[in-house]
């Protein structure tokens, strides 16, 4: 970052301009924040009781922590489920058998195109009507919807992970007499899985964020708990800010882990370890030249 290719190392005039620019930009940002604060102050949003009620021990014990526990529980189940789903259908898409490949392709493309919220609402209403033996129906609907969507994304990661391995890996497997299926299982998949681990960790961020959609079907996750708290205390701004900060910290930590993993694992596989961007569909981004631009310095220098 110190030596960007986009601008020269600055001389005296450039440095002076930079200082001026820094001051102007900082003042502008601060002015914006002060203006925001004054608007909120005028509306009485800095009254101590609103904030105290949003961060009190009671709020944490009765609302945030149980909510966070439910959020993490659904994310955990959804992650395990979507990894299994993803590996199964990823292998399906690489299968030698045409119908298997075709069916897996349709399933994966379908669930990647349908909004998670639609699936969640549908499964919730479906379970309520058809499967009342399920005790915690909102939880089941959240997990199923998250598994179908994120599992399909992971299936694509598996497929692109195997596709991005050097050709020689598969050829070597065939050359020593393994069948194509054996080559996939014992040579290509293990390397592809290692290569896609960072992208999977990034996908965890998506799972966690999407679990907040559970509020639509009355699943008492973190966001819904905060809403219940705020309807009692009349402090939605304060409660939502607290919840957003909790999400940001957890997701930011996950992103850091993904970053570290990518660097750590790059020596363990012939594939390229790239993290997804954490939005809906990281595969195409990950397949693109995120880390390895054409020039040797192009990747790191500009960012």
């Amino acid at each position, binding site marked *: 970052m110190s030596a960007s290719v986009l601008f020269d190392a600055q001389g005296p005039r450039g440095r002076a301009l930079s200082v001026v620019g820094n001051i102007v930009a900082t003042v502008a940002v601060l002015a914006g924040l002060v203006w925001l604060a004054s608007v909120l102050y005028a509306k009485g949003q800095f009254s101590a009781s609103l904030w105290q009620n949003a961060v009190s021990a009671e709020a944490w014990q009765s609302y945030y922590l149980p909510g966070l526990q439910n959020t993490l529980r659904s994310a955990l189940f959804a992650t395990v489920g979507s990894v299994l789903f993803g590996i199964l259908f990823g292998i399906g898409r690489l299968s030698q058998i045409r119908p298997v490949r075709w069916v897996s392709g349709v399933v994966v493309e*379908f669930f990647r195109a349908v909004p998670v919220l639609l699936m969640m609402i549908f499964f919730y209403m479906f379970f309520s009507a058809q499967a009342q033996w399920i005790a915690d129906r909102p939880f089941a609907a959240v997990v199923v919807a998250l598994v179908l969507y994120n599992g399909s994304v992971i299936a694509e990661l598996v497929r692109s992970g195997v596709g991005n391995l050097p050709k020689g890996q598969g050829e070597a497997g065939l050359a020593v007499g393994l069948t194509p299926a054996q080559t996939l299982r014992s040579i290509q998949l293990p390397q592809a899985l290692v290569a896609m681990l960072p992208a999977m960790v990034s996908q965890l961020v998506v799972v966690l964020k*999407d679990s907040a*959609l559970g509020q639509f079907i009355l699943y008492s996750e973190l966001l819904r708990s905060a809403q219940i708290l705020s309807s009692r205390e009349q402090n939605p701004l304060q409660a939502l800010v607290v919840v957003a900060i909790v999400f940001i910290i957890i997701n930011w930590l996950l992103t850091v882990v993904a970053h570290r993993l990518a660097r750590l694992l790059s020596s363990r596989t012939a594939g390229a370890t790239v993290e997804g*961007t954490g939005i809906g569909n990281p595969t*195409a981004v990950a397949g693109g030249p995120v880390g390895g631009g*054409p020039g040797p310095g192009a990747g790191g220098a500009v960012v």
Partner: protein
Amino acid sequence: MDDFLAGFAELFARFDVLGAFWVNIQLTFWAALLSLVLGTVLALMRISPIASLRWAGTAYVTIFRNTPLTIILTFTYLVLFSQLALSLSDTLDTTFFWFAVIGLAVYHAAFVCEAIRSGVNTVPVGQAEAARAIGLSFLPAAALVIFPQAFRGAVAPLGNTLIALLKNSTVAAAASVSTETSSLMRTMIEFRPDLMVAIFLTFALGYVILVIPIGLVTTSLSRRLAVKR
């Protein structure tokens, strides 16, 4: 079977399914426009020579990329509308619509910024060096040399962001936009629970029909526009 078809036809006569999709398309269109502008400015900030701008851009992306969209859109309704009593128009529906557009744009701008940055990474160092060598300073170099190529390299990730935005526009229900698809689907299932699978598949298919062409167009565009090197 006839009963099924008759029930289905009646449902479609009673509820405006295409109208609901049209609301989502409008949400997507305006939010895409706004987030493209905001995201480009953010990307420019993040590669600029001024440290505080870089810092502000990074902070924005870190904050909004890691916040669930549902929180942002719930915020527009519960906080901006109810608690702070802000309004964008005389009619409630229009106010909710534009709050939802702003919420969607603010969230997706972070991803647009990252997509453009990944496009910037496809531009070889030599291009930036050449721009400097002929005496262009940062802004002209970015505007004339780097960004035109970066946008062409960013078409695929921008297309993914657009697809995500279209699907995420259903979350506008949290911002109290009650005419969009997820709300309508819920109403229709409550009205005819016996047809719920068919209703879900109809809406799902609607999204498949919208999403797959966007994917095909952006993939072929990204190939056609890619700078041959």
